[in-house]
């Protein structure tokens, strides 16, 4: 067994879980939902094992480092974070329907990591600039935040679907949670994500300062993470002080996640900067 096999199995596991969650939603099949949760949990355990094994393998190769150092590894960790975040949400709100709007993100992350062109899956040694514990703290904090924002945007979509067909009391729509509840979970999720994104930007700044002597250099990646931060800060203000709820917050949750995606991929592929290591 090696780590890439475990990661491959995890990709399939999340695909299966996504199909089951969506099936459970469409056909209102409770049992499918229960199985989906089981598959998700099991896949999560396998993925955790896969990440751990990859870490171990890097030591066997003689230059051990935490598996958080390039695009591939960060995508895998992103999926991992989405799933653990979702599982906690499922436990807390006792609602499986959310899975149909969260677990597919984990599958997309894994599938993209595995199949997209130009993503190197090899375990490679770290260049000097990346040898820092602040980098590990930076990646972990950022991606926990991104995972929360991914789920928030999924819930935003859920909210918009539900609210655009309010009269409809049958089938798919009726099985979604009440609007008020979705709205509340979106809000809490954004708060959680905002806290982690703030920590992510700060640890990133500390890392930059210890490596290059500049905690902020307005490089495109930094700037985009700040833009994302502004979008969510604006969202929180709109809610706290102007009482925005519902559709407007749902749209902002989606807009915020688009900004996250751009920070993550767009900057690597479309713009140049210090973080360009991420594109290999």
């Amino acid at each position, binding site marked *: 067994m090696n780590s890439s096999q475990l990661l491959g199995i995890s990709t399939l596991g999340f695909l299966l879980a996504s199909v089951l969650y969506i099936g459970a939603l469409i056909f209102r099949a409770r049992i499918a939902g229960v199985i989906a949760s089981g598959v998700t949990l099991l896949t999560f355990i396998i993925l955790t094992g896969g990440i751990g094994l990859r870490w171990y393998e890097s030591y066997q190769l*003689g*230059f051990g480092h935490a598996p958080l150092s390039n695009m591939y590894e960060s995508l895998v960790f992103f999926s991992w974070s989405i799933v653990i975040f979702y599982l906690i949400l499922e436990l807390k709100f006792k609602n499986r329907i959310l899975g149909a709007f969260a677990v597919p993100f984990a599958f997309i992350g894994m599938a993209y990591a595995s199949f997209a062109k130009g993503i190197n899956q090899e375990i*490679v*040694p770290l*260049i*000097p*600039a990346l*040898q*820092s514990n*602040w980098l590990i703290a930076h990646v972990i904090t950022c991606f926990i935040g991104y995972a929360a924002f991914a789920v928030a945007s999924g819930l935003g979509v859920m909210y918009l679907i539900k609210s655009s067909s309010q009269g409809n009391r049958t089938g798919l729509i009726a099985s979604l949670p009440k609007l008020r509840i979705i709205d*509340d979970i979106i809000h809490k999720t954004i*708060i959680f994500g*905002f*806290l982690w994104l*703030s*920590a992510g930007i*700060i640890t990133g*700044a*500390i*890392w930059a*300062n*210890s*490596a*290059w*002597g*500049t*905690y*902020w250099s*307005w490089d*495109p990646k930094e*700037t*985009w993470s*700040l*833009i994302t931060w*502004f*979008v969510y*800060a*604006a969202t929180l*203000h*709109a809610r706290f*002080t*102007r009482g925005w709820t519902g559709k407007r917050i749902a749209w902002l949750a989606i807009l915020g996640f688009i900004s996250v995606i751009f920070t993550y991929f767009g*900057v690597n592929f479309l*713009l*140049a900067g210090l973080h360009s290591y991420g594109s290999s």
Partner: protein
Amino acid sequence: MKKKKNPFIAFFSSVKLTLFVLFMLAFFSIIGTVIPQNKPAEFYIETYGNSMANIFQALDIPDMYSSWWFSALMILLSINMVVCIMERFPNAWRLITMDNLQTKLSRLEKMGQRRVFSSLSPPGETAVKLGDILKKKGWPTTEQRLDDSVLLFAQKGRWSRLGVYIFHLSILIVFVGAMVGSFWGYKAGVRIPETTSIDTVYRFGDNKAIKLDFKVLCKHFKLTYYENGAPREFRSELAIIKDGKEVAAKSIVVNDPLTYGGLTFYQSSYEPYGKMLVRISNNNTGNSKEFLIRPGEEIPWPQEGISFGIINKKSTAAPGHFDYKIWFKDKKSDPATFWMEEDSTKSFERPEAKYTITMKEFFATGLQVTKDPGVWLVYAGCISMILSLIVAFFMSHRRIWIHVRKAEKGSHILISGLSNKNRVGFADSFASLAEKIKKEF
């Protein structure tokens, strides 16, 4: 009654302005990520054409994050924040410090969380019992005895109301730290050949020479590689020399700089010279001398009557690391040749004397030098930001009042509660408290 606000304050304290400025900052920041920053003027002309390049220059786009209008947006945000804090803080402070026992009884009857019970005992006795129950549940009470009734009050987390103010203040502290850094700090670079020292660094941008009041010595530089040929580590052994004495020393690598006298020295680059640094000592005379030689060169040391050179090299198991073949001649005997490892020391006996030779590839280390007196403010602001954000998001000010008044038989109990946030969670703990009280009465 709302007082009419000063229009200046009304404008600057509005959260509408905040939303506007945040979206503007987000929007304009994007421009700076799409149009490359701080390139030479020709770059913009080539890429965007003459007229566009002129417009860009007029609007400071090539260096937009330090342009007057970007700074203006930041200042607007800061003023917005300061005015907003000043506007709202007094009310928050009043809520934190006020005497809640003065709360009007009519308000208690309208609060979000309310329960009513009755007790057979008179109000005084009932209040004592209720006070005990609350205390056990972690809500120590204060009380006020009125004519024929008692008001109990307990609260938790009142200071959490400060969280959101401290958070906004922290952002300002970070701004101030950044400004301190940009006014009183600088970034510079310097190159130090091994075994030499410098006392002047060159500021980035204008290349101005800045003289330090100490010297920085590079004792040793080492570059190592991974098997795949990628660089593994750049390491410089640095020392700070002040008045001829070594006052600090550190071995620095890319993520671990040396800080001395308000300056921080970062490993940023290196320069090979294609030369070897060789130190030869004659152990008998105690003389010792350093030479820079190119492979193939013959170098004499007339005082000692020797000459030597490097005549061959071969790779070793360590990537990027070589063994060198030394040719060595003194007055009396035939020349000797032997292999020695790069960056190592070797002693050998000759009929004339015993010699020790140290040899390594010669480099200059490239350092970035940063002076930033504001960085501690920035870090302090960041830490306080995270802590206060946790307080602002996850803690709430919860208050419970119990009014016990005389009824026909015994007393009538009204429990009311308020929370400034997380109303659902508070409703739960309020319900469990009410349940407990119900059991006791």
